[in-house]
């Protein structure tokens, strides 16, 4: 990693309180451009809350979130998305009755123009310049995630692994700089996990930064450039996979302190 690269995302003293409980407490996080950064931790550590804060789904109680230097703490999710930070959900949230292709096309919405007037004046059955470009892009993305042959299937009819792939394709359609993946391989078989890992690495190599949470440790260790470990809403360790695997605090958090003694 080049030390001079600017961070695409920076969180400073980020906190979120639910009643008297801090789901995320005083988190500092720096995500470098063109890296795969994993956030790991036991269930309930605050990973998903952290994602909700970064993408504007929840406003933070305190702290700053900077996307390439722009303050976005408290901004609406659609503004954050237009700044290039787009996510997928742990529980997959597609538009179930729309086709795979349409799901990806909706992703192009925030990068294209054309309101009601454009809709009324289009020639039925013939795609305009923007629409044709969106379609080409959507087809490419479906090809990329391996869903080209299922593009006319309804999203709800796809297998879980395909739904996760489709959600990634939809996110990619928004031209993100930073892609947040919340447990992207949960429920996938080993072959599918392998393919997903290859996809994430190729995306990084094209310049898309990836921040992901995942319980699949061998995948995390294989593809991550940086790993942040959370426990009870706090950061307890950070570093490369090699460093994290040897960190006694991490082992304690995962296995209980007796395992390390």
């Amino acid at each position, binding site marked *: 990693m080049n030390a001079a690269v600017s961070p695409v995302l920076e969180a400073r003293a980020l906190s979120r309180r639910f009643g008297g409980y801090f789901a995320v407490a005083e988190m500092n996080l720096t995500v470098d451009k063109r890296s795969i950064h994993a956030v790991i931790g036991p269930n309930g550590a605050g990973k998903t809350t952290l994602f909700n804060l970064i993408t504007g789904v929840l406003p933070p109680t305190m702290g700053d979130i900077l996307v390439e230097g722009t303050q976005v703490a408290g901004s609406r999710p*659609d503004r954050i998305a237009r700044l290039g930070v787009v996510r997928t959900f742990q529980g997959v949230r*597609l538009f179930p009755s729309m086709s795979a292709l*349409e799901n990806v*096309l909706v992703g192009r919405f925030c990068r294209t123009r054309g309101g*009601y007037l*454009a809709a009324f004046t289009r020639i039925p059955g013939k795609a305009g310049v923007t629409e044709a470009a969106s379609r080409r892009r959507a087809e490419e993305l479906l090809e990329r995630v391996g869903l080209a042959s299922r593009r006319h299937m309804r999203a709800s009819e796809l297998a879980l692994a395909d739904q996760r792939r489709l959600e990634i394709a939809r996110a990619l359609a928004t031209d993100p700089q930073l892609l947040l993946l919340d447990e992207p391989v949960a429920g996938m078989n080993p072959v599918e996990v392998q393919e997903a890992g290859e996809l994430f690495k190729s995306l990084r190599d094209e310049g898309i930064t990836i921040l992901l949470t995942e319980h699949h440790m061998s995948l995390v260790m294989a593809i991550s450039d940086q790993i942040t470990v959370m426990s009870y809403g706090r950061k307890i360790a950070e570093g490369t996979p090699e460093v994290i695997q040897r960190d006694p605090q991490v082992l304690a958090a995962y296995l209980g302190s007796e395992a390390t003694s």
Partner: protein
Amino acid sequence: MLDPYIESILIFSGINVILALSLYLPVSAGLLSLGQGGFMAIGAYVSGYMTSVLGWPFAVALIAGGVSAGIVGLLVGLPSLRIKGVYLIIMTMGFGEIVRVFFLNFEPTGAASGMGGIPTETTLPIVVGVTVLVLLMCFQIRGSRIGRALEAVREDELAAEVIGINLTRIKVAIFGLGAAVAGIGGGLFAHYATFIDPGQFGFQRSAEIFIMVVLGGMGNFLGATVGALVVTILPEVLRVGDMQEWRMTFFGVLLVIIMIVRPMGLIGVRR
């Protein structure tokens, strides 16, 4: 010449199709309204006042009525961002009631005694023309960039928002557009009835429009169209023999049967 009875049924069918589509538009983004009668009233009174009192040409008055209803729709649409489902329905019901009571007390348009003397301008060709235009508009929205965004918002608001869709703009715009269409429907109604009073645009009217859309199917603009035709024509078809007083009861029974047999509406499918 067309039989005047048949002609009146056809004109009301057209107006009802326009009104049903005025509700289908917000429904396509997941916004249910039981206040379309209120928007219809605004269009009817504004356009009726312009032609009968100010002497404006019908076409200009009709458009002005639609625009007025649309502007009010945008204002009412704003709170719809925070309110969902059943609560939105109740809010729109409240709005419809406010409009009715407003015209009930508004002296310049006749208050409770209604507004008469509106010229007969609405003819069958005009109704057919406007209906076709509104249908064409719905057809064009479907499958366009904006139409997909509307559908996405209906299917999963949060997922739509995190991929960059501004919920405020999408929802307020479609609510306003629906209101404008209802206003135009109201203008056509006023210039056919020639006499209007607030009671014609009350809850009963809003509920009727709601029934048309639910009956036809909420997933498709053709559903709203078929629903409007059934609700308009079926009671007339039942007007046979000596059973006149019972026809609305039969109509109610038929509605119940249709909803049991086809809970997703007559044209239930999305496409």
